């Protein structure tokens, strides 16, 4: 939001200035109104001051926009055509304003429906603009690319950023090769995001950090606000650990103190010297990142080449272009393959950084934009319907005016003026709606939506709203206006003031408008229905474990207990103390687990019936009790047991998916698995098969296995505690225990059921459901309003006919049915068209759906019944009015 201004709204002042004569006259008038505004502001508050200002500005603009402000007097001789035109416009606008005020109900309906349509469009366009259209907030952002390792066996020949699964991160060593060997980067560097524990004044705090090389800062090209970012010296082995603060962290922890440079932060037990602060708005790779740290010597010197934890970002030499650069990088990949034969299959892929950040969200957003555009279209048809009614009402007036010599263009212009005024009011309403509604709307957005922090509600919004409003207004106005002005004079005058069947052709057009409204509303309703069903399916997924009663505590093993002996003792002590809590049934632990952050997936060799296969697999190092605690069934063989100690034969339990891969027909028991990382080349024997587990609701790992933690000591982060009561009860005591066991940690605790419910997929689909549901409700409401309008109008037109029918003995029931039938016919036709549209457009949304086809018949039938019922209600009111006509009154009215 813009800061409070002392003056009137800038847009209003600008509009006023435009409508006034140029030079000192206009500017002095603007000044006068400004002065009056200033006086109002102190006495009446801003809202009232603005309203009064707008009223005055309108009065001035209407009076002064033409010569003398009124239509040229016939006696005064001819003025120039343009002057006459300008005068006529002012006149038309004033007349239009008066006519609109005389029918407040109709006007309000039009303004509200336009306002809703324009508001929704403006808001969503702001979002799409910020996320998809605007360049990233870096200088020459189009030159920035993400660099990835590509394994053609996994990705196929043409990986895309939408399917990130095919693109691999790399270790420090490989990143260094790329940066040093590439001839096409003007700057390049690597980064890796991580969670870290920072010792703050109030105790250990969990903070999102990104490890960065100096090249990354150089490539992004953003200068620090204070101090420096990383320099090539920081990349050297032996360089002192350095930290750069985000603006947010700097303000939160140090209160924006400019003397922060040189202070030492304790991050995960290591001291990092603060060397700089980045400016506000610098959020790389995401807005969650609070600190940037230099890479540790351990990572800089680690020779491992087949791990992956680092992403690489580079700035391309502008002359080359993406394709040229890609060809050069293909050469680099070939040369690396010659040095390291095991990487000969690996490629290097360059992708525009923006595509990577937006990664696949584009289609969804554009889909929503389409839905919102449909709502506006419906609003426009509503407006057209209303104008058509008005035009029909005024046929006689138009006929008289034409008979008196008014030109057809002149009459059209007058009706256009009415429409422009309506749509400007609608635009104003829409803009107000977008401004007020934007904040709550943004708070609904899934947090992981990229670039959300860059969304700004600005005055550009107003421009969009009014452009949309004018477009909508002109599109809808031309047809009715032309039709009304085109009616032959004698027809109208010959009607003797009666509206016989004169409105029939107008009502045919109106009928067509209503049919299209119903069709569009049906598309949106069906779409919303699909996403609701999809979300239900998503929540009904069997995750492969039982989450009831489970609490997860995540924290690191304290540094002084990481030696092999101490580590085993730590595990034993933790397990025993957790078991001693009342109500605890089972205790397990795993280094990684479902719905609890990321996981690593190393290259793994597995024996299969067709020989050894290498691939990326998930594995978890677990306590033997893990499967029992999580309720993951063992479907074959045995579970891990305490006997699988360090000295025993190395064993694993594999998931059903991996078991099927190893032995499609028989049993994998006795086959072996090997993790291909440095320092681990043990073949481990399969002793059991566990049920598949989903890691996120819409993602099942392609093959997973479990290793007993004692046979592969390392970190263990997640403690799983199952109790027989409410898991919330355990949160406090488990947290206290975690802090006691590792005073330097900031433990994260959560209830597993909550973690599943609030997981990314559910949140994203909930967002879609809310948004699309709201739009569909809006569309249905507008369509129903349209149906009501046209039927009410038809009844009014046919009052006389129906009066005669009833005088001749027609039953009321039949009259009622005749009107209802018309409403249902329109609805039926509309729904029919809508069904066709959904069947055709279905493919577009399929990617966003989970577990149901886009042509789900249940959803289609449901949407049709719902919309049909709404139309029936809308038709009933005018039908009842028709049926309750008193024939005597009607005929006497003649």
């Amino acid at each position, binding site marked *: 939001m813009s800061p409070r201004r002392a*003056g*009137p709204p800038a847009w209003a*002042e600008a509009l006023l200035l435009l409508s006034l004569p140029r030079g*000192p*006259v206009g*500017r*002095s*008038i*603007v*000044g*006068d*109104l*400004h*002065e*009056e505004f*200033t006086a109002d502001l102190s006495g009446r508050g801003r809202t009232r001051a603005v309203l009064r200002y707008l009223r*005055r500005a309108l*009065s*001035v*603009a*209407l*009076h*002064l926009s033409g010569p*003398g*402000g009124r239509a040229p007097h016939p006696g005064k001789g001819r003025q120039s055509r343009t002057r006459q035109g300008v005068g006529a416009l002012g006149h038309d606008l004033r007349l239009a304003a008066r006519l609109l005020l005389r029918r407040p109900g109709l006007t309000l309906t039009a303004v509200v429906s336009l306002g809703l349509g324009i508001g929704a469009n403006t808001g969503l366009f702001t979002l799409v603009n910020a996320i998809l259209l605007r360049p990233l907030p870096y200088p020459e952002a189009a030159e920035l690319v993400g660099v990835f390792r590509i394994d053609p066996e996994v990705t196929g020949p043409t990986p895309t950023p939408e399917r990130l699964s095919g693109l691999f991160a790399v270790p420090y060593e490989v990143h260094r090769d790329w940066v040093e060997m590439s001839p096409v980067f003007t700057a390049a560097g690597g980064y890796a995001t991580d969670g870290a524990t920072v010792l703050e004044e109030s105790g250990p705090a969990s903070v999102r950090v990104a490890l960065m090389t100096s090249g990354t800062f150089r490539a992004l090209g953003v200068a620090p606000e204070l101090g420096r970012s990383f320099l090539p010296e920081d990349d050297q082995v032996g360089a002192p650990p350095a930290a750069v603060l985000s603006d947010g962290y700097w303000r939160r922890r140090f209160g924006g103190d400019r003397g922060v440079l040189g202070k030492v932060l304790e991050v995960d037990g290591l001291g990092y010297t603060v060397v700089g602060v980045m400016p506000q708005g610098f959020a790389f790779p995401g807005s969650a990142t609070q600190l940037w740290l230099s890479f540790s010597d351990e990572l800089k010197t680690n020779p491992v080449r087949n791990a992956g934890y680092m992403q690489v970002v580079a700035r391309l030499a502008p002359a080359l272009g993406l394709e040229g650069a890609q060809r050069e990088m293909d050469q680099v990949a070939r040369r690396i393959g010659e040095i390291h034969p095991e990487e000969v299959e690996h490629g290097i892929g360059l992708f525009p950084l923006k595509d990577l950040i937006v990664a696949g969200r584009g289609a969804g957003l554009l889909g929503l934009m389409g839905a919102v555009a449909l709502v506006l279209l419906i609003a426009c048809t509503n407006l057209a319907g209303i104008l058509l009614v008005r035009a029909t009402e005024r046929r006689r007036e138009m006929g008289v005016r034409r008979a008196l010599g008014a030109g057809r263009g002149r009459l059209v212009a007058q009706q256009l003026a009415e429409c422009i005024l309506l749509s400007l009011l609608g635009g104003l309403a829409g803009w107000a709606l977008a401004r007020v509604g934007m904040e709550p709307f943004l708070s609904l957005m899934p947090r992981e939506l990229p670039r959300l922090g860059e969304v700004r509600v600005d005055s550009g919004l107003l421009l969009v709203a009014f452009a949309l409003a004018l477009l909508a207004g002109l599109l809808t106005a031309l047809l009715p206006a032309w039709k009304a002005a085109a009616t032959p004079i004698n027809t109208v005058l010959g009607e003797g003031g009666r509206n016989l069947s004169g409105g029939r052709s107008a009502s045919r057009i109106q009928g067509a408008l209503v049919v299209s409204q119903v069709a569009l509303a049906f598309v949106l309703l069906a779409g919303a229905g699909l996403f609701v069903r999809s979300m239900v399916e998503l929540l009904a997924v069997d995750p492969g474990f039982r989450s009831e009663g489970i609490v997860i505590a995540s924290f690191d093993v304290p540094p002084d207990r990481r030696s092999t002996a101490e580590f085993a003792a730590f595990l034993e002590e933790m397990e025993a103390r957790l078991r001693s809590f009342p109500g605890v049934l089972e205790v397990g632990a795993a280094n990684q687990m479902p719905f609890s952050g990321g996981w690593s997936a190393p290259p793994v060799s597995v024996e299969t019936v067709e020989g050894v296969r290498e691939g990326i697999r998930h594995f978890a190092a677990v306590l033997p009790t893990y499967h029992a605690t999580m309720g993951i069934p063992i479907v074959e063989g045995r579970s891990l047991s305490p006997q699988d100690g360090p000295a025993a034969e190395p064993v694993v339990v594999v998931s059903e998916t991996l078991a099927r891969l190893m032995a499609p027909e028989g049993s994998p028991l006795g086959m072996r698995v090997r993790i291909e990382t440095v320092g681990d080349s043990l073949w481990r024997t399969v002793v059991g098969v566990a049920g598949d587990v989903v890691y996120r609701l819409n993602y099942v790992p392609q093959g997973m296995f479990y290793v007993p933690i004692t046979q592969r000591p390392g970190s263990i982060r997640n403690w799983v505690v199952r109790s027989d009561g409410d898991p919330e009860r355990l949160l406090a005591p488990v947290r206290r225990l975690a802090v006691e066991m590792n005073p330097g940690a900031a433990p994260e605790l959560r209830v597993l059921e909550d973690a599943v419910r609030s997981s990314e997929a559910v949140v994203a689909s909930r967002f879609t459901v809310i948004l699309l549901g709201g739009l569909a409700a809006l569309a249905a409401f507008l369509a129903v309003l349209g149906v009501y309008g046209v039927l009410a109008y038809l009844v009014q037109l046919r009052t006389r006919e129906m009066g005669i029918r009833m005088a001749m003995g027609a039953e009321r029931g039949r009259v009622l049915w005749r009107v209802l039938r018309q409403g249902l016919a329109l609805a039926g036709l509309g729904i029919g068209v809508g069904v066709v549209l959904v069947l055709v457009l279905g493919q577009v949304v399929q990617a966003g759906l989970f577990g149901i086809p886009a042509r789900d018949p249940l959803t289609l039938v449901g949407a049709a019944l719902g919309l049909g019922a709404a139309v029936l209600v809308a038709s009933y009111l005018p039908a009842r009015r028709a049926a309750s006509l008193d024939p005597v009154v009607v005929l006497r009215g003649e």
Partner: protein
Amino acid sequence: MAPRFLGDFEQMVLLAVLRLGEEAYAVAVLREMDIRAGHSVSRGTLYKTLERLHARGLVAWAVEEGTPERGGHPRRLFRVTAAGMRALHDSRSVFLRMWEGLEGAGEGSPR
């Protein structure tokens, strides 16, 4: 320009400008008319009238630099020209002649 009677509103505007002397700009004119005549005036009408009076040479204006409370926009100070004074006097004397001998008329009569 052919001699012409001033309208009521034109007369009121001219008189307000005259009363305000050095400080006669639109906002002050509005205030003056509100206070003296109890007449709340539409901004549009006032500005139109001022333009018309200017076009007939009955008022003249000069521009003064803007102040912060005016958002920096200039201020137009009006004054009644000699022709304006003449028109005011003409109108007044016409009215006075027409009123001559009728001062008490109608005041005591029952409705």
